């Protein structure tokens, strides 16, 4: 699997192309796309509204009811507090995962023996369900921030390690030789050749891990926390305030979509604009 990835990476380096500067996405096309997206949202809300007409509101609340619930939790500060707490926990767990995963991935990729020795650990870590980590976390940390952070960490870290590890194996030996001929010091070889090669792998791992972290943090908060969006979700469900359950869910979806489309995607496009297959901005 690694070998194949490396082959692909090398091959794409050697691609020779005569096309100069790829055409940017035209403004017209982009407007069309926005229109399509809006239409899609309208259709989903329409179906939701229609379905809610024939259901009791504690089973399926309609869009208006959910909007009211959303305004209520936004007005009394509940929304921002809990969203903030959850976001903070995800961020801390994620940053720890990146700080541990990055160097570990590099070491495992660069050192063949270490790589072979630890190879079985990653799939094992990946197969352990987040719910199990959550239960362990409650045993070890009780009802606290550390519980959620730990679960996020244990979920995100193997994903980042796997990707960085894979990235380290794709470093092109020809570039190392080039640096060698230029008498470039080892430290600079790390920052100027290893790092840029690994970065796309780290980034895709981090993106995946971040998405997982969100989902997993809710599970952890549901069973091991007395604050945060996950806790609020469970509370609302226990009290059969289905409109609030919907409101929290909606908030999360919007938040994830904003982070994904507003930060991650543009960042990726900018960082990896040198790659042929990424659309320009």
């Amino acid at each position, binding site marked *: 699997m690694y070998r194949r990835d490396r082959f692909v990476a090398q091959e794409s380096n050697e691609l020779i*192309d005569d096309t100069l500067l790829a055409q940017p996405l035209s403004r017209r096309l982009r407007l069309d796309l926005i229109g399509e997206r809006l239409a899609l949202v309208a259709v989903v809300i329409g179906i939701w509204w229609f379905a809610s007409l024939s259901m009791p509101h504690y089973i399926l609340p309609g869009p208006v009811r959910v909007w009211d619930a959303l305004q209520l939790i936004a007005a009394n500060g509940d929304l921002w507090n809990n969203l903030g707490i959850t976001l903070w926990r995800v961020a801390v767990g994620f940053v720890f995962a990146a700080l541990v995963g990055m160097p570990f991935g590099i070491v495992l990729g660069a050192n063949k023996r270490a790589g072979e020795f630890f190879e079985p650990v990653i799939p094992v870590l990946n197969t352990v369900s987040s719910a199990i980590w959550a239960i362990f976390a409650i045993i070890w940390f009780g009802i606290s921030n550390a519980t959620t952070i730990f679960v996020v960490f244990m979920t995100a870290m193997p994903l980042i390690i796997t990707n960085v590890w894979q990235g380290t194996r794709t470093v092109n030996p020809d570039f190392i*030789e080039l640096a060698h001929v230029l*008498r470039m010091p080892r430290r600079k070889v790390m920052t100027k050749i290893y790092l840029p090669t690994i970065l796309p792998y780290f980034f895709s791992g981090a993106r995946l891990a971040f998405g997982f972290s969100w989902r997993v943090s809710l599970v952890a908060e549901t069973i091991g926390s007395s604050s945060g969006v996950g806790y609020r979700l469970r509370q609302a469900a226990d009290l059969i305030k289905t409109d609030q359950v919907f409101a929290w869910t909606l908030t999360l979806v919007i938040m994830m979509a904003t982070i994904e489309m507003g930060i991650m995607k543009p960042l990726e496009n900018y960082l990896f604009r040198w790659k042929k297959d990424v659309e320009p901005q």
Partner: protein
Amino acid sequence: MNQSEPTEQVCNDAEQTPPAIRLSGISKSFANGNHTIEVLKNVNLTVPSQAIVGLIGASGSGKSTLLNIISGILKPDRGQVCICGAASEEFNDWRSVSYMFQDDRLLPWRTAIRNVEFALEAGSIAKTERARRALQALQLAELGSFEEAFPYQLSGGMRSRVALARSLVTEPRILLMDEPFSRLDAQTRSLMHEELLRVYQLKRMTVVFVTHDVAEAVLLADQVAVMSARPGTIREVVEVTPPRPRDITQPEMTSYMQRLRALI
């Protein structure tokens, strides 16, 4: 150029201007499983300063190995390498020796100008100065308007020009090239030959290039060293005297080519 020079351990022997490169008694073997392969055996070669020398020979004659030994990235088992009158081990100005590979080896995540700058980043030159020199080198390679293009946006010939600019940006005294244009199509290749000669006229460095193409050797070189196959030795050094630019369809050039072909 003297191919049967005796092995000597002194690089600076009171000559007025020492040769750019002097190889005496170079031998190199590689271990391959249980047996060793002798790639180079007693190679002697002197490259005068500011000359263009072509290394030609059958594949497996150790041309690239010899180039790597000159560039100091490989150590010979025996023999002495002198660079600009200093023993290779004591020579400390390696940044004035440039190496151009068979492929362009542009870093795909860097723009053309940043790729050229890469050659200067081993040292400690200020960023603005690096950028200024890199732009100059790109302009020298006639690619000034493509400085912000990424490698994937450039054609094979343009990428070769960027690689050439990267080799020249350090203002090398010696330029080593390992079949530098062999992956280009015939037309682009001949453009790159003109390009190289134009830069050579301007900068007057010593050039050593490896090729398997007799026409390329005759077109560019002042001297062509023909290597025999395994173990590689210099079989003969042919002086190519006609002034450049040369036309390989001329009978004089054709006879050079025939002579070289017979030697390989």
